[in-house]
């Protein structure tokens, strides 16, 4: 244990920086008062947004703020503690409500090492600037030399100036041009989306540059190390915490072709320096092979990507390594960028989201496998959007481009000359994706009048209305799940109602992986049902894929747990793409995970005794606070500011979930179709689980009081948005502490 006099308080850096770009004022303030109730990260950012940004503020007004925050576990050595979260007002979903933009890379850890738990960017500059944080020294610097540059060139220039170890989180042309779909990039390919780039652009803030040489002090460093070793040896799986390999392997009892534990004998990082490196058969209890388990390049891009694979990488502090690192000479030739690769959507924008609609020739083999050309398409688009700082609304941009082209909508609005430049013919018929550079640059330029294709970068809320295609929302192909403008992020295809429910709660796509990780982990359904009973109270909490049963209280519990664990991780900050540890790869522990680990790490790092139930309650507080903030800023059907009818105004799932598969009834095998009355019940049950108004879905007076949010209750009451009732906290809460303890005999914190 290192002394606090030298290294500062445990866990948190203890202060947040505030930079006002209008006045040039720079200050730091203590965050101690928020630590207990809001933890950090998303909790801090949402508390600050609630307290400081008035309801009804426009996203591009100087009164809007962009709040970056990390938590007590960020950069502490806890596995997967490299994430960070921003909160600001949405640029692309209805009413400009608070959204969270999470990102990995180096930003979170570096900010923490600079001695800050957060950065509040407020006001607006009248000339291009960037914010430089160099440990305690914070300054506003002239960004005119990098304004107009892509994110790569900007990063390079600012690293040249401030040190190659500096983390540069920067907007690209999309953000500068105030395109609603603009993001903030760090470390080449790590994106904080949800329009954050446009918000920074509206403040003329090109970048945040962070250098940090300080320490995260931890109360019990030996326990942090021991818990990490235990977790990595036997609890942690691969990406999405998939815990079985994707191919049959002699050591493994189970395998599942969908698993992201894709390492196998004969599969190589074939372009590795000095010769191919085999991914092999990494097993549980082998900490030094963990980083080979997730061979993401071939998983995402197809088998032809193997020869371009240099290695995997990923976020700070994570042993899973889910980021493909690709060197494809065709991509270099077209974009000028030697390296590419990502994880998830930006890794496969064409093959997964456009190809099903555009059906370009030469991209799939007869067996349906991605071809070598497909790798080129995906990586070219990936590099281009990342350099432009162009966000995709969780792939919506790609589906929208494909659909508007295919249906002739683009041709109606763009000039023939533009359509010739976009050269979709070459994309679809000639195996040549290079005109995507022009397409994406034109979108990022945000000159809708001259280049109408940019309207797609405003999101479907805008372009569907302007171009009179609101029917797109009701088309299952769109994947739009909510009429406020966001698409599915593991929705009804993930445990039916459970996935549908958690897709409703935020003001953007949910980014919740707690449930989908369990769904895809690779264990057989009977075992998963046993585990579900232990964790959520009944085997009926889950159904087999596409074989769903009507709503029940255990599904509501599972949905609640999925939401609060996600929020908790974004507060701590841990990666919810892998956490929580609901399952494990080790047969020796009957594949059970360890749900107490977040709390044990929290205690080891901060020195404060806490249970997982305490942490879940804090996360519930953060979720409910954002919900209350949404009530203040949401407009009702008549356009009046302030609305608490979430059921009818906010949590409205798109029609296609009820109308898809017209020949099949809901709750029969082979469909994930939802049923209208059942969905109403599902919403009611989730509202009750959160203590919200069972009819309206808004936080009630009792709920807010239970969570210590009396001031929020007063605010809502004043606005006429407060109702009474709802289940009390004790009545609605299931205890999670120790539910899997029988399987956790090796846990050092229990020794």
């Amino acid at each position, binding site marked *: 244990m290192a002394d606090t006099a030298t290294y500062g308080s445990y866990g948190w850096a203890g202060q947040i920086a505030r930079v006002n770009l209008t006045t040039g004022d720079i200050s730091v303030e203590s965050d101690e008062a928020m630590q207990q109730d809001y933890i950090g990260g998303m909790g801090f950012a949402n508390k600050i947004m609630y307290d400081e940004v008035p309801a009804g503020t426009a996203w591009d007004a100087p009164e809007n703020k962009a709040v970056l925050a990390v938590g007590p576990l960020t950069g502490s050595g806890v596995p997967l503690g490299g994430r960070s979260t921003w909160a600001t007002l949405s640029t692309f979903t209805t009413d400009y409500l608070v959204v969270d933009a999470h990102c990995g890379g180096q930003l979170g850890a570096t900010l923490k090492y600079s001695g800050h738990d957060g950065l509040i960017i407020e006001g607006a500059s009248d000339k291009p600037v960037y914010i430089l944080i160099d440990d305690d020294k914070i300054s506003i610097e002239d960004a005119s030399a990098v304004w107009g540059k892509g994110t790569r060139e900007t990063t390079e220039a600012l690293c040249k100036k401030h040190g190659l170890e500096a983390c540069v989180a920067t907007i690209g042309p999309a953000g500068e041009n105030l395109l609603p779909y603009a993001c903030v990039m760090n470390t080449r390919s790590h994106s904080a989306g949800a329009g954050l780039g446009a918000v920074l652009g509206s403040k003329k803030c090109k970048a945040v540059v962070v250098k940090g040489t300080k320490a995260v002090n*931890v109360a019990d460093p030996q326990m942090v190390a021991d818990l990490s070793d235990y977790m990595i040896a036997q609890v942690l799986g691969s990406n999405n915490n998939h815990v079985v390999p994707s191919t049959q392997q002699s050591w493994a009892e189970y395998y599942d072709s969908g698993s992201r534990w894709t390492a196998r004998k004969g599969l190589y990082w074939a372009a590795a320096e000095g010769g191919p490196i085999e991914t092999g058969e990494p097993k549980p209890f082998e900490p*030094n092979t963990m980083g080979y388990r997730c061979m993401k390049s071939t998983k995402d891009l197809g088998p032809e990507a193997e020869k371009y694979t240099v290695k995997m990488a990923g976020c700070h502090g994570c042993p899973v390594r889910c980021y493909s690192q690709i060197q494809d000479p065709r991509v270099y030739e077209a974009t000028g960028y030697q390296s590419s690769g990502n994880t998830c959507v930006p890794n496969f924008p064409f093959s997964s989201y456009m190809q099903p609609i555009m059906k370009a020739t030469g991209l799939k083999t007869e067996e349906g496998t991605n071809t070598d050309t497909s790798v080129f398409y995906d990586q070219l688009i990936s590099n281009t959007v990342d350099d432009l700082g162009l966000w995709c609304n969780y792939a919506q941009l790609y589906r929208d481009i494909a659909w508007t082209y295919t249906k002739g909508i683009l041709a109606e609005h763009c000039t023939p000359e533009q359509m010739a430049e976009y050269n979709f013919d070459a994309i679809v018929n000639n195996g040549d994706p290079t005109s995507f550079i022009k397409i994406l640059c034109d979108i990022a330029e945000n000159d809708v009048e001259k280049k109408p294709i940019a309207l797609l970068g405003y999101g479907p809320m805008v372009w569907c209305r302007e171009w009179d295609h609101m029917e797109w929302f009701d088309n299952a192909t769109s994947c739009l799940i909510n009429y406020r403008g966001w698409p599915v992020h593991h929705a009804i295809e993930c445990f039916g109602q459970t996935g549908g429910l958690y897709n409703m709660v935020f003001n953007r796509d949910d980014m919740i992986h707690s449930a989908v990780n369990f769904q895809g982990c690779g264990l057989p359904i009977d075992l998963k049902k046993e585990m579900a009973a232990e964790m959520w109270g009944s085997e009926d909490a889950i159904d087999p894929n596409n074989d769903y049963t009507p709503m029940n209280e255990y599904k509501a519990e599972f949905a609640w747990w999925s939401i609060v664990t996600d929020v908790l991780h974004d507060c701590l900050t841990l990666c919810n793409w892998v956490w929580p540890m609901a399952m494990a790869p080790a047969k020796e522990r009957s594949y059970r995970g360890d749900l107490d680990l977040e709390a044990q790490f929290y205690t080891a790092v901060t020195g404060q005794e806490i249970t997982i139930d305490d942490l879940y309650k804090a996360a519930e507080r953060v979720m409910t606070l954002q919900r209350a903030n949404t009530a203040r800023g949401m407009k009702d059907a008549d356009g009046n500011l302030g609305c608490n009818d979430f059921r009818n105004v906010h949590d409205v799932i798109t029609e296609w979930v009820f109308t898809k598969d017209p020949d099949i009834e809901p709750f029969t095998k082979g469909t994930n179709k939802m049923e209208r009355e059942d969905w109403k019940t599902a919403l009611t049950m989730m509202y009750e689980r959160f203590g919200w108004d069972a009819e309206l879905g808004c936080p009630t007076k009792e709920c807010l009081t239970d969570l210590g949010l009396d001031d929020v209750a007063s605010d809502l009451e004043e606005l006429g948005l407060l109702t009474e009732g709802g289940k009390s906290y004790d009545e609605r809460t299931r205890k999670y502490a120790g539910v899997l303890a029988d399987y956790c005999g090796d846990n050092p914190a229990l020794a």
Partner: protein
Amino acid sequence: MKENTTTELVGSGADRLESFFTRRGFVKVSGAFVASMVALGLLPEEAAAAPTSSMGDLDYYATPSHVLKVNRARCTGCQRCEMACTLALDGVSQPAAARIHVHDGYQYGKELGSGDGIFYSMEWTIRACYMCKTALCQTACPHGAITTNDNGVRVVDEDKCVGCGACVTACPYDMPVINTVTGKSRKCVACGRCAAQCPNGAIELIEWEDVSHSSGPTRQENPYPLVGEQQDFVGGGKVA
């Protein structure tokens, strides 16, 4: 000018012969003494090859027992080694003060134009102490704050270190760092914690050997040109 207290450690060596012969410990003796010991077969040949100190004495440093061997092609840049290092040895997570270095080369390699880093070759070098036979960090220290432990490893005595950075300057590989929080120098002690938890087995703690301590390539043969020097790359593509 402060007295070079390093010389206080110089003696006949007689009182340290035991550790001397087990290739551990640290002694400084006269050149003639070492030469005669080598001639008698009581010392390995490397002993005679060590350079003279600033005081005109011949330094003899026992060979370290271990060294970290790295393979950068296997490194995936998680930087858990840096956190594990400081958690184990300082009780905090502080990559900038770690005794192994990944983060400073992660983005662009050793220098802009090296062709390395996540923006270019996707390779970067894991930098760790070479455990030199002739430890310039030690000879350079004006306060005798770097001593040799029982494993032949040079360690920083925090009580003596004043954070002057002489060791940093002296090291040909820029390995020691001055911790910005404590103002004390830090260098590798070959504890192996970084290697034990490397998820890719890119670091190994091996018996000391006098070879390059990398098991793979260490630099980019043909670095790609810098993006910042390619003026036609605007917004992610070769479009003017």
